[in-house]
């Protein structure tokens, strides 16, 4: 079973991002970039499936600028067998990415596609679902456990108030939740080996897809600054403030 894992290059989770002065987006100059943490979980799950003998090949794929190769190399160091970059200068959006991945899936014949449930920059949580709709593959989102059966998957999902277990037929799409696994660190020998693993660069035109954005970002605003708290002297003062200033009790 071939496993395709889409990965996204995002700002490192430890970086405090800043909005550009013209509010057109987030300032990415000199900012450390990394593999989207949910995509890292997806890679880890695919590699574990391969180590368990359930998968035959793990292919990491990214849609974006040339520098996404850095993150694909990281995925190769984590255990992916090969990588594909669909290179574009356009800032791709979920629908465009899903279309490119759908074309790639058809070309590669992957039976399982594991997405991160969302990227930590856009927080859209759309690409996996759009991809499933475009390809007609069965889908299980927000997975916290994946078991491979005979021609099917048993996926446990985290939902409000509990867990839901689904059985879906292959080929299938899974999106990973935070608790699916804990990604490993790439060992230093594997980092060296990753340099020699194949990384193909193709264009959207090779896949016959158009990545032109369909959604326009009008403005990006930083969250409102949290106001400093105050220390009240008595319970009566607290009740008074809650009633008359905050107006949260009557």
């Amino acid at each position, binding site marked *: 079973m071939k496993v395709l894992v889409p990965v996204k290059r995002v700002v490192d989770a430890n970086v405090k991002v800043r909005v550009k002065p013209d509010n057109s987006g987030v300032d990415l100059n000199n900012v450390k970039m990394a593999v989207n943490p949910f995509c890292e979980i997806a890679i880890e799950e695919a590699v574990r499936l391969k180590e368990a003998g359930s998968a035959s090949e793990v292919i990491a794929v990214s849609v974006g600028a040339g520098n996404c190769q850095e993150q694909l*190399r990281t995925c190769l*160091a984590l255990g992916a067998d090969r990588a594909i970059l669909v290179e574009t200068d356009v800032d791709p959006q979920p629908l465009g990415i899903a279309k490119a991945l759908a074309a790639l899936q058809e070309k590669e014949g992957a039976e399982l596609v594991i997405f991160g449930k969302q990227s930590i920059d856009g927080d859209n949580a759309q690409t996996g679902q759009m991809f499933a709709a475009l390809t007609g593959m069965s889908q299980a989102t927000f997975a916290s456990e994946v078991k491979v059966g005979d021609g099917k998957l048993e996926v446990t999902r985290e939902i409000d108030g509990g867990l839901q277990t689904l059985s879906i037929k292959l080929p299938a799409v899974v999106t990973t939740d935070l608790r699916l696994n804990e990604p490993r*660190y*790439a*060992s*230093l*020998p*594997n*980092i*060296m080996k*990753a*340099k020699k693993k194949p990384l193909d660069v193709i264009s959207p035109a090779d896949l016959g897809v158009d990545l032109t954005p369909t959604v326009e970002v009008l403005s990006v605003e930083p969250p409102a600054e949290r106001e400093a708290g105050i220390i009240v002297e008595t319970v009566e003062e607290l009740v008074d403030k809650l009633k008359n200033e905050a107006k949260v009790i009557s």
Partner: protein
Amino acid sequence: MRFAYSDDLGALKEGTRAFLDGQNPPERLRREGGLELWPALEDMGLVDIAASLPLAEAIALFEEVGRTALPEPLADTAVIAAPLLQSLGAAGRRPQGARVAICHADAPYANHADTADFILLLDAQRVVWLARDAAKLVSVRSIDPWRRLFSVTGQGDTLAEGDAAREACAYAAALGATAAAAELLGLADRMIDLAVVYAGTREQFGQAIGSFQAVKHLLANARVKLEFARPVVYRASAALDSPVAVSHAKIAATDAALFAAEQAIQVHGGMGYTYEADLHYFMKRAWALAGVWGSREQHLAVVEQAVLDGGIAIGPHNSFES
């Protein structure tokens, strides 16, 4: 000489940083436990890679080791014992995965000797290979809570004597001083980073203290000292047979780290001196490393002697010579 990392080495350095940042954060240093990360270092390939790379490349990894004040004494096994055993034709003495503590005139107390598999005792007369069980250890307290020091005595196998022992001893001193210098660079880097973060968040007079010129100058001076020390250490790692280069590196790195510690303390104000701030772990490691593998005075004497003997071209007209 090209003082820049290759792409491969850059990737190894980045991988090492990701691993150590994740596995050896200040929260771990606060627990003050044992060397439980050693098996993970083995699994990561860090011990083998550090031992197999030439020191000029391995120091890139030791900057990262210093940056997180890693308690596991990686340099003793990978940078000193491995090449030393190789040079003595005794590489087979160390089984795969075994950890070695070092006892040397310039580093007289073996770090974490109580849990090492073997201890290498070096002096100008003899090089002795000692199984830990055959060693008599006496605990010595270090200022760094993560350095468990021991004086070591015991009967072991002699690996070298006479001239061969003297050469091995000098080789170990050069390796140890350069590895310590690389760790000191990483420590200086981290202490400056901690101070920069603190200066960006601590407010006084309604604004971050980092916006005040007097605070900026402290940190800028520390950064300049570090960046000037870095190429000196890189040079030493590629010229271990030059005692002057090695001594210069240890002095420059020590000065940069101690200066960074001092400035970071000032920036942190009273907080920097407290147990609650993370800074003191890095500062204490810097103090400890400043005192091993040759004191500042010892290394300064080497450089001074070389200048007086005419072995170093000094003066502005020679700035870019040699």
